[in-house]
């Protein structure tokens, strides 16, 4: 099975967009290597703008370029995009409603040992609190290409969380997918497990582990936060009566919160376990796999959480 960095898929989609006639402008903040933008820059050197290490300016300039008629993409590390430029994202992009598509690269614990300055476990929480912001969390290379292609063709602000991890396409990737539809990972009646973005791969593996122990998982990959088709989740939870959410994000404000709010709003009294960086803590400056293990986001940890439930 082919493994591909999702950023490579993203850049391929940029190249395709320009060849489709989209007036694209890619803005980076010294993040040419972070964004793996080289193949695009070589093909379209006039369509890459580097604003230097100045992330507030990255967003302000991008909003201006969008108001000047371009479809604008920003591509830099998620921690320095969302937290550093929060007010620019809020006012210049969301409130002014400019046609800016923000790629949050290497989110979650992707930077592992570099520590909390480089982790981005609050980006979804912050983006969810903004009006008019669409949020996508692609799961695999094909899903990334689909999400990026979608936002480039849809007017208005968007945030796409693009994990730097190397992942295969999910087994069903040949089939039909909508950009905001949960993707089935496994079918079972004992427990629902939802994996946000690339955490879906760990959920898939955990489902296999649990199946051997006689626990049948209804597993779903979640490729978006807003919009997101909640129907499959409602049906699944109604069937199993128990749900675990898995995300490389704080349990505050991400998928776990979204599901908790949904279940509460719908009056569905079921057991819910939210796996992620625990409420109110920073993740340690440790390798990614070690952090995932600590917060039970690895397949073994997810399976253990399911057994406890």
């Amino acid at each position, binding site marked *: 099975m082919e493994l591909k960095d999702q950023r490579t898929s993203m850049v391929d989609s940029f190249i395709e967009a320009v060849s489709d006639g989209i007036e694209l402008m890619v803005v980076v903040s010294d993040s040419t290597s972070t964004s793996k933008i080289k193949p695009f820059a070589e093909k379209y050197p006039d369509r890459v703008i580097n604003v230097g290490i100045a992330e507030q300016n990255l967003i302000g300039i991008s909003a201006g370029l969008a*108001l000047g008629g371009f479809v604008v993409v920003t591509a830099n590390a998620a921690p320095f995009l969302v937290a550093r430029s929060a*007010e620019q994202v809020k006012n210049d992009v969301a*409130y002014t409603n400019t046609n800016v598509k923000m790629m949050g690269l290497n989110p979650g614990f992707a930077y592992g040992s570099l520590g909390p300055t480089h982790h981005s476990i609050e980006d979804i929480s912050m983006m969810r609190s903004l009006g008019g912001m669409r949020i996508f969390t692609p799961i695999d290379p094909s899903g990334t290409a689909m999400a990026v292609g979608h936002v480039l063709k849809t007017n208005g602000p968007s945030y796409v969380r693009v994990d730097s991890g190397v992942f295969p396409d999910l087994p069903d990737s040949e089939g039909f997918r909508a950009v905001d539809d949960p993707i089935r990972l496994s079918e079972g009646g004992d427990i629902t497990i939802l994996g946000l973005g690339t955490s879906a791969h760990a959920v898939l593996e955990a489902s296999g582990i649990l199946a051997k122990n006689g626990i049948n998982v209804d597993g779903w990959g979640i490729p978006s936060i807003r919009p997101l088709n909640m129907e499959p989740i409602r049906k699944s939870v109604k069937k199993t009566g128990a749900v675990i959410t898995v995300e490389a994000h704080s349990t505050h404000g991400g998928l776990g919160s979204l599901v908790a709010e949904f279940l509460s709003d719908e009056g569905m009294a079921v057991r819910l376990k939210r796996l992620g960086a625990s409420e109110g803590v920073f993740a340690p400056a440790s390798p990614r796999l070690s952090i995932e293990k600590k917060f039970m986001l690895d397949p073994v940890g997810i399976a253990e959480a399911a057994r406890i439930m």
Partner: protein
Amino acid sequence: MNLEKRAASIRRRIITMNTHAGAGHTGADLSETDILTALYFHVLDIDPDRLNDPNRDRFILSKGHGAGGYYCTLAEAGYIDEAQLESYLQADSLCPGHPVRQKTPGVEVNTGALGHGFPIACGLALAARKSGRSYRTFCLCGDGEMQEGSNWEAAMTASHFKLGNLVLIIDRNGLQLADRTGNIMELEPLGDKIRAFGFTLNEVNGNDPDAVAELLEGLDYSADKPHAVIAKTIKGRGVSFIEDNPAWHHRVPMGKEIAMAIEELG
């Protein structure tokens, strides 16, 4: 009508509108009036009939708290109906407390938080260069606003990309919310700082609309350096008891003050 008479008319609208609303940034509105007059009645190649023309000049009021002066200028120039000024600050008004492009015809960007307009203006100017359009971009910042670091990030960018089609105008009235700018955070030598960032530097009496118009008309917009204008102004200009008084940052005339202000504005 000459520019001075236009400016006086806009100032009367400001006093009337702010007193009717019972709130407003009167000092800022009166400070910027002559600059806006020069822009909207002499310099800008824009028109209420072609609000979406991609070749129109762009103006961004980065000091969004000067919205009152902006709306009165837009009303004077025919972008919005005079009656809309009466709804200033009211629920669902087309004239809210800070500019909103989805509400008010002619407004390009939603400002209010300081230090946002100039980076966006740089992006607009860069877009013109990238797309081969000849429109010019003008951005008006408050002087206290130059304390925002984002403006200096943008200044580096403007210079790096040789944006001669961009003009940063600084409303240099020497006052900010709490006190004189020099007492809060010294800006001087402001001109030297701007020059050091690679701008052509121009200084003008920002309360003389003819002088502002003449200066802006004379700039070389095909140059490879961005332009900066330090427009020396008096906050509250035109009404003696409002002028240069920090207490009038966010205050409006009341009682006898209303008639006194209108009388002074002729």
